[in-house]
């Protein structure tokens, strides 16, 4: 595998060790007694357990019974042909910070795509702002990875954030749901709930990765300033003192709390990151700790 502008080869090799875990898998091993109802799914032996009354007799290992005179039930784990839908916010608000939030988000998207393809999962990347970008329907082909990387590199920030509208549109267009990884700064005054709910209603496992710049997390502004919104270009005149800065911090925490509460209630995995955290640390540490990859 050749490196790209986004990643070096060493990092890509580290990524190959990981695979994206769907929420169902992370909940626990899928037992063999569950019928595979989706095409492309198979079962493989995982473990034994003692027979209990009511267990399906078809899964008793009669060979063991013959040798050990003990009733044991075979347990299978589900090996699902998983579709990973990476939804990347490319609105103008992502085009800020050092490094750019956009580049940071692209690297996360590329890394997740790389992990997914090497785990033989189907992966697709779609950008969104106030409209949907080119939709890459999830595929498993390794050759597709190059074109996805090129696509990621070619994406330029533009438009305003329309989080709800974009996710609703996407959930309506996609035929086969899977794990939806939404990467965004979520700076949308219209909220985020409806968009995420539309994915949940379509049976997506939703992972929300919020990327914020250091300037957003702790703005070093003071005095009389005119803040120009990068998307709406509407100026906001403020006299920022220490109290105002404290209130900003409080409001930011409140906002995070709202997102966390919503995600907790709706079983959405939510991870927040600042753009100064090295991408390797974020992927290898935070995603693994959060259970996104394993």
């Amino acid at each position, binding site marked *: 595998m050749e490196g790209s502008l986004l990643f070096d080869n060493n990092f890509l090799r580290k990524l190959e060790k990981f695979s994206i875990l769907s929420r169902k898998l992370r909940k626990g091993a899928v037992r063999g007694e569950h019928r595979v109802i989706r095409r492309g799914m198979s079962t493989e032996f995982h473990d034994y357990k003692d027979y209990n009354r009511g267990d399906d007799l078809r899964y008793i290992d009669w060979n063991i019974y013959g040798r050990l005179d003990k009733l044991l039930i075979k347990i299978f784990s589900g090996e699902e042909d998983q579709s990973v839908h990476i939804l990347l916010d490319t609105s103008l608000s992502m085009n800020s*910070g050092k490094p750019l939030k956009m580049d940071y988000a692209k690297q996360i998207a590329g890394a997740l795509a790389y992990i997914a393809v090497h785990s033989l999962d189907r992966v697709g990347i779609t950008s969104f702002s106030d409209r949907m970008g080119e939709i890459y329907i999830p595929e498993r082909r390794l050759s597709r990875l190059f074109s996805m990387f090129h696509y990621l590199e070619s994406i330029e920030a533009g438009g305003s954030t329309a989080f709800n509208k974009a996710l609703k549109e996407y959930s309506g267009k996609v035929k086969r749901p899977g794990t939806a990884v939404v990467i965004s700064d979520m700076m949308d005054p219209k909220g985020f709930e409806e968009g995420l709910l539309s994915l949940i209603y379509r049976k997506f496992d939703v992972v929300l990765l919020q990327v914020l*710049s250091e300037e*957003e997390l702790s703005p070093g502004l003071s005095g009389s300033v*005119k*803040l120009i919104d990068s998307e709406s270009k509407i100026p*906001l005149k403020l006299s920022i003192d220490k109290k105002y800065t404290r209130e*900003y911090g409080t409001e930011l925490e409140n906002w995070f709390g709202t997102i966390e509460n919503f995600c907790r209630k709706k079983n959405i995995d939510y991870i927040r990151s600042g753009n100064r955290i090295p991408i390797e640390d974020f992927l290898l540490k935070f995603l693994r700790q959060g259970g996104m990859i394993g």
Partner: protein
Amino acid sequence: MIVGNMTVFFLFLLIPLVILLHIIMRRMESHSVSSTYIWERVKIKRKYTLPPVLLLLLQIMVIVLIILSLADLKVPFTIPLRRENSVLIIDNSASMNVVEKGKSRLDDAKEKAINVIRGSSGETMIITCASPPEIIISYTDKSDDLIKAVKSIENTELSNGIEEVMKIASASVTPEGSIIMVSDGAFNYRPSETDNFKFIRAGNEKKKNIGITDFYLREITGSDSFELYMTVSSFASEKTEFTFQLSAGDEIIKEGDYVIEALETMPFIFPIESQADKEIHGRLITDDLLQTDNSASAYISSHRNKRILLVTPGNFFLEKALESLDGV
């Protein structure tokens, strides 16, 4: 309005300085941010943020208040009246015709009287102060009528009738009420403590005026000669030099230079030989504010009144008394 300390007005230069500082401080530095979403949320929750312009106005107001307090301003005519009835005396005597800075003292007095009426909450009565005094309007609390009455007061060439007017005012005012006089102060009257007297000066406090306040002839008994009794009063704030001319008809019969001290009264007695059918005219020659009171006249008529007493005979004592008089 009297300004006690004019130099403090230089502090008004602070106002443009504050405005300049405000402009410099408010010069907005533009920052492009990814989103103003969180800032907007904070701003919405901030309920009590004063607009910058209001802050500037408050600062200017504070400066103005400090300057005005240091300027030691006096507003002598704005005496707040209590609810009780008040008698407002407006002087329209001759001295009120003096014009200072393009405005007569009477006009100034009228303006100050109107201010008093506007600040009053009780009933007010208005009396003019010339001799004889005149009640312009009786007690009323209708300020429009009172102001109309004040405006109707006309100037006169009469002397000041302070004593008479104070008698009327003292009799009319209620025990809790007050007597307010708007005048140039050209009178010699000291109100008693019980009068509850308030004085508002009209015109400039510094005066320069003298005048003939008494001028009358008395026939000397048993001769054709007369004596002229004359009083010159000073209303000036400093001593005044003047020349007095006394003429009979066109002939100057007496002339002299005199000096009168401030607020003093100078009596004169001049003997005048028989000047039948002539006008005796006295004139003060000086440069003062009011020329009207600088001259006075009397007329000696050849047709003298004869006094006749009808007496019936038989009154012994009266007959003896009349016999002792010459010409009877």
